[in-house]
């Protein structure tokens, strides 16, 4: 696994895209075929499943290190990563061996089938045989949550460099339903297996948030606008009499949204649509919370089905009559999509994402102001002449979200971060005034710069009033502007509200603590937007 560890370290050590691609391409050139295939699998999110529970791993690692479990747990809190904690806490290996990545993956897959008594000696033996990064990587394979910090786009670019096959071809071949056990380098990468094509989705095209002013995009006539829906992005495929629903994370969600099975009754074979899955009733989207109740469920109870029925809000057509039409300009794709969806009866679980027609940017900005009332996140802008690209790219698609809601709040508790920010206080609890009292209403841990986290950390150390385990109560002194996307009533919170995506927008050092917002201000926001 030394070669793979070298690759991992090279990727981990640099932030430069070209260096990452070069390291990957070199690896794809040199590593054994089985290792290359597993690397592609891991980098496209097809990781081996967890082979042993985290609880046992902690116990065995603490025991092997001769440390009490509580001390292991404290260390884990700081490191923030189980595989890394174990790698660091164990004594150095007795004798290191170098076996290929595919060997260790096979080992981990075999382990999964064994009972715990049989697993333990094999895992201990592996820890004795692997040191440093290799031990860390082995633990990552064991715990099943392995990510390498390289986007699929970069991986595809490196693969293209190493094989000479074009990037779009490779990107498409790597989509959908394949596993490293069941295929080979030859079948997956070098030749295109037609039997795999039936369920295979197209790579998603992702947009960036717009950077400057919308009018900088040029003539309004070049652009198409629609709501930016607050649901789950999905690609609906109807081929060979079957249908498949894919998430942006290439997860097959077909069974989770049984309503969409009816699409087969209405859509012709050889149709692929891009759209948003929304909980939808009486012609309106329901709040994201309604959809949330269905995420993570493999089967959906009748009651939930009735309360939060879903539709696909279609906004693009990628395949028509079995033909890949991604190269056709968006304006034309949209016209074909409209023809396809317009005449569907209301019982079909497909809606057409309506156009937000506009003649000038100011007018569109006014429409955007209505986003929150309409239950959407803002607008999407799409260039009419653009093909359907893959991955996150700038230029032809832009998100134009509404500004977040904000409130000025007082920091009252601080907790150290972990992982990247193990030595800093980064997780804060915020409160608003209720008469003379401060009522906590949200936590937030992102949005400040590293320099700001450094400063607030030094301040927290010197202004701690009380400690509860890892949490410190601090002097109420600092006001932060908290931004969030939505607000709802909640019985689980003392303040009676729950926020969606709270984060720190600004450290208001100019603002005295008495001038922070009040519970009444928060309740007013709930009245208006909840």
């Amino acid at each position, binding site marked *: 696994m030394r070669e793979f560890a070298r690759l991992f370290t090279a990727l*981990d*050590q*640099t*932030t430069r895209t070209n260096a990452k691609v070069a390291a990957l391409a070199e690896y794809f050139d040199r590593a054994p075929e089985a290792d290359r295939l597993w690397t592609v699998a891991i980098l496209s999110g097809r990781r081996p499943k967890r082979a042993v529970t985290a609880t046992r791993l902690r116990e065995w690692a603490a025991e092997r*290190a001769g*440390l*009490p479990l*509580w*001390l292991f747990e*404290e*260390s884990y809190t*700081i*490191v*923030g*990563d189980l595989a*890394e*904690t174990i790698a*660091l*806490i164990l004594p150095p290996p007795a004798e290191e061996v170098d076996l290929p990545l595919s060997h260790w993956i096979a080992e981990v897959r075999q382990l999964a089938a064994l009972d715990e008594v049989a697993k333990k000696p094999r895992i201990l033996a592996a820890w004795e045989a692997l040191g440093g990064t290799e031990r*860390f990587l082995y633990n990552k394979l064991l715990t099943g949550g392995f990510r390498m910090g390289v986007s699929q786009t970069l991986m595809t670019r490196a693969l293209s460099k190493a094989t000479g096959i074009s990037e779009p071809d490779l990107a498409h071949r790597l989509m959908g339903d394949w596993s490293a056990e069941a295929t080979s380098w030859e079948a997956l990468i070098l030749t295109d297996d037609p039997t795999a094509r039936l369920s295979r989705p197209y790579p998603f095209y992702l947009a960036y948030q717009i950077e400057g002013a919308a009018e900088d995009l040029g003539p309004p006539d070049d652009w198409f606008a629609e709501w930016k829906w607050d649901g789950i992005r999905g690609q609906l495929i109807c081929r060979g009499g079957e249908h498949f629903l894919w998430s942006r994370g290439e997860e097959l969600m077909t069974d989770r949204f049984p309503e969409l099975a009816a699409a087969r009754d209405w859509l012709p074979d050889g149709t692929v649509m891009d759209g948003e899955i929304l909980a939808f009733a009486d012609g309106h989207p329901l709040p994201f919370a309604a959809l949330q109740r269905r995420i993570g469920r493999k089967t959906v109870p009748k009651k939930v089905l009735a309360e939060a029925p879903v539709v696909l809000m279609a906004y693009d057509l990628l395949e028509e009559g079995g033909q890949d039409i991604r190269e056709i300009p968006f304006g034309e794709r949209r016209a074909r999509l409209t023809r396809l969806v317009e005449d569907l009866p209301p019982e079909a679980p497909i809606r057409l994402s309506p156009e937000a027609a506009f003649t000038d940017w100011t007018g569109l900005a006014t429409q955007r102001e209505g986003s929150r009332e309409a239950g959407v996140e803002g607008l999407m802008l799409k260039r009419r002449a653009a093909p359907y690209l893959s991955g996150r790219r700038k230029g032809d698609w832009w998100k134009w979200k509404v500004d977040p809601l904000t409130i000025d709040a007082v920091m009252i508790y601080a907790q150290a971060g*972990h*992982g*990247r*920010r*193990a*030595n800093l206080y980064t997780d804060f609890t915020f409160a608003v005034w209720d008469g003379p009292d401060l009522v906590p209403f949200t936590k937030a841990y992102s949005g400040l710069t*590293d*320099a700001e986290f*450094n400063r607030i950390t*030094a301040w927290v*150390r*010197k202004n*701690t009033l009380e*400690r509860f385990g890892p949490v410190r109560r601090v002097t109420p002194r600092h006001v932060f502007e908290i931004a969030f996307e939505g607000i709802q009533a909640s019985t689980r919170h003392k303040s009676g509200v729950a926020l969606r995506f709270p984060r720190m927008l600004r450290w208001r050092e100019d603002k005295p603590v008495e001038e922070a917002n009040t519970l009444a201000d928060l309740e007013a926001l709930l009245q208006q937007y909840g």
Partner: protein
Amino acid sequence: MAKPDLLTVAEAGIYCAAGDFYIDPWRPVDRALITHGHADHARPGHARYLATEAAAPVIRYRLGVAVETIRYGEERRIGSTNVSFHPAGHVPGSAQIRVEHKGEVWVASGDYKVAPDRLSEPFEPVRCDTFITECTFGLPIFRWQAEAEAMAEIDAWWAKNRAEGRFSVLGAYALGKAQRLLAGIDSSQGPILTHGAVENVNDVLRGQGLPLPDTLRVTPEIDLKEHPGALVIATPSAMGGPWMKRFGQASTAFASGWMALRGVRRRRAADRGFVISDHADWAGLGQAITETGATRVIATHGYTSVFRRWLEDQGYEAGVITTQYEGESLDAPEEDVVE
């Protein structure tokens, strides 16, 4: 009735009533005993300073104050106590301070490192009843490799960059870490440049006779083209700023104990992180404590509450005192004060 503690924490810092002096106080006092010159331990504004002969020049330079000196191991009567300073292995001149009163012995460790490097006076264990220990890296995830191994990693990184015609910019504290690196690496490889804050401390330490390889201060006047592939020792704060621009596509690295954690390594966004600390690792803390023979151990800066529980598990009478020392913060102001 229990005897009062020989050392206590007062408003201004760790205080000894029997000798009427403070150790590394953070507010101005009459008499300050200073373990070493880092900014969180040696602060301005005291009336009298006492430090080791090797620590004094940097303190004088940084704070512009008069410093009375003491030799390692020399015993001095202060009030009704006997006080002596002993090598802490942290930075050149750093000391643990031993305080004896009526047969009872306390040692305040300051910052310390048990494993030797090629510059600082090696750590010496001091027998005592009560040991006030730092525990910056007081968790079992911290285990330092041998000095020679760590330095070899830096040598290899520098050699590779040199071959590619790039500068190697290495971030390290201006006082201690920077000079330890200079003394430890293979300085014959090529030219070594330094940030002004580092070079100022180099000058002071050279002046007191410490052997350091030749270095060249980076100034607007020097022509970097004359020093291709040079190693550049910089302060961590300089590395984040415009000062770095002149080195173009340099390879960057940090040397710190925090680099043991992948998350912190990644946050720094440097190409490399070398795990080199001037503080004791987990095993080093354990060894130091055992060798003092102390029955009571008090933890200061670092993972104090965890460390205290561990000590109690091991059968010590353990405590925590809250100080204003900062340990090895990657972003410590230590080097900024040296400018």
